[in-house]
């Protein structure tokens, strides 16, 4: 479903992604983990072309994302993106946040968009928050609205860049539960996360990055008990002991 081939990217003369290759089959969930500055955010943002790439190719559901001939706006409707800092539209209510893109981009009628939006918000436990503005919602609620907003476009793929890192600890679970539900429903997902327990539980593959390279790819049972690389061993000994 997602195919990343020989991707390289620099910011100026700082080489941030080096020879990245990664396959994410349909309905698989991949966790991207690694130390700060490893290039995780940069990589996940190249998948929907929020960042450009210098060389290589990224194919999502058969579409070459960075090809100049690709209609990137259309391609992006198939890829949901959830940000660490939610990025909800503060001047729109929760429901309007969810319905605006389906209406303006997909041309859905207000009634259709609202019907679907209400279903999504309700299924994420926000059935009583349709009219609430983001400023009135807790961090966990905001992030669930953001997930509903992404799902409203009916994407085949969902990308999450540290979806729980900006949350107070007591709200992490509600967001992880929502992502877990998506995994159970068979959504193809890439999740940048520091939640190791969560990664272990729901992911099919762990992708470990350091210094712009993919150092190791392994199923969670193997990665968390017996990683091959020294970098991953060091990283785990630090994060698992804290």
């Amino acid at each position: 479903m997602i195919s990343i081939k020989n991707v390289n990217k620099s910011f100026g003369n700082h080489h941030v992604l080096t020879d990245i290759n990664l396959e994410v089959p349909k309905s698989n969930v991949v966790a991207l983990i690694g130390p700060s500055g490893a290039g995780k955010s940069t990589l996940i943002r190249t998948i929907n072309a929020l960042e450009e790439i210098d060389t290589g190719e990224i194919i999502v559901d058969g579409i070459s994302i960075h090809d100049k001939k690709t209609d990137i706006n259309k391609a992006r409707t198939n890829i949901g993106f959830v940000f660490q800092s939610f990025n909800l539209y503060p001047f729109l209510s929760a429901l309007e946040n969810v319905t605006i893109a389906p209406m303006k981009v997909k041309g859905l009628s207000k009634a259709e968009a609202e019907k679907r939006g209400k279903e999504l918000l309700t299924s994420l436990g926000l059935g009583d928050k349709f009219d609430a503005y983001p400023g009135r919602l807790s961090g966990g609620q905001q992030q669930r609205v953001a997930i509903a907003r992404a799902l409203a476009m009916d994407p085949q793929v969902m990308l999450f860049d540290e979806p729980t890192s900006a949350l107070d600890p007591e709200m992490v679970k509600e967001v992880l539960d929502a992502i877990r539900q998506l995994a159970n429903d068979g959504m193809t997902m890439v999740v940048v996360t520091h939640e190791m327990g969560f990664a272990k539980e729901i992911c099919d593959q762990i992708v470990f990055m350091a210094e712009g390279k993919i150092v190791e790819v392994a199923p969670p049972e193997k990665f968390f008990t017996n990683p091959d690389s020294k970098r991953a061993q060091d990283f785990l000994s630090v994060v698992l002991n804290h």
Partner: protein
Amino acid sequence: MDIQLDWSVIPNNMDVFIQGALLTLEISAISLLLSIPLGVIFGIGRISRNPVIRFISSAYVEIMRGVPLLVLLMWIYFGLGQFFSLGSYWGSIVGLATFSGAFLAEIVRSGIQAVPKGQMEAARSAGMSNFQAMRYIILPQAFRRILPPMASQFIILIKDSSLISVIAGVDLTLKAKNLAATSFRYIEIWTFVALVYFIMTFSLSLIIRQIEKRMLKNEQ
């Protein structure tokens, strides 16, 4: 010297003042309406990725900021007027609108840049084009932020409009000047005219404050 004030000149000519004030409001409002699209277009132009658009927009803003309004009005009426006469009414409006548009452009630019980058990213991620993201997500937020400076700009516009009397633009100031020239009641007339300008600008401040309050309430 013993000056005798005679305020009766004010009520006796109230129709002239009211007419003048209405003309001032009319010219300012039309100029504002024309300057808003100029401000939006050139404000966005200043942060465009296209260097030609950026250059043109910056040139417009810098020139308008560097030339006094009085000189611009003279240039339009007497200079440009030799080839292409707009008349004093439309000449005044065009002068005020292009002048004010440049200041609005700066206000719009800073308003857009104050919207967090994540808003554009969220909109684009959902498949909106750059134009859609601007129109539905960025500008509505920018406008909330720039309402106060835009209101000050409108107030400046009302006050600046008094300059159009130099190109025979008929407004409160010109009417007052003519009245003063025939009645010789300078202190009375100009004091009252100052008061009328103050009332117009101050009521505008109050209205804008109400609009701001309503917008803020919506976002809580």
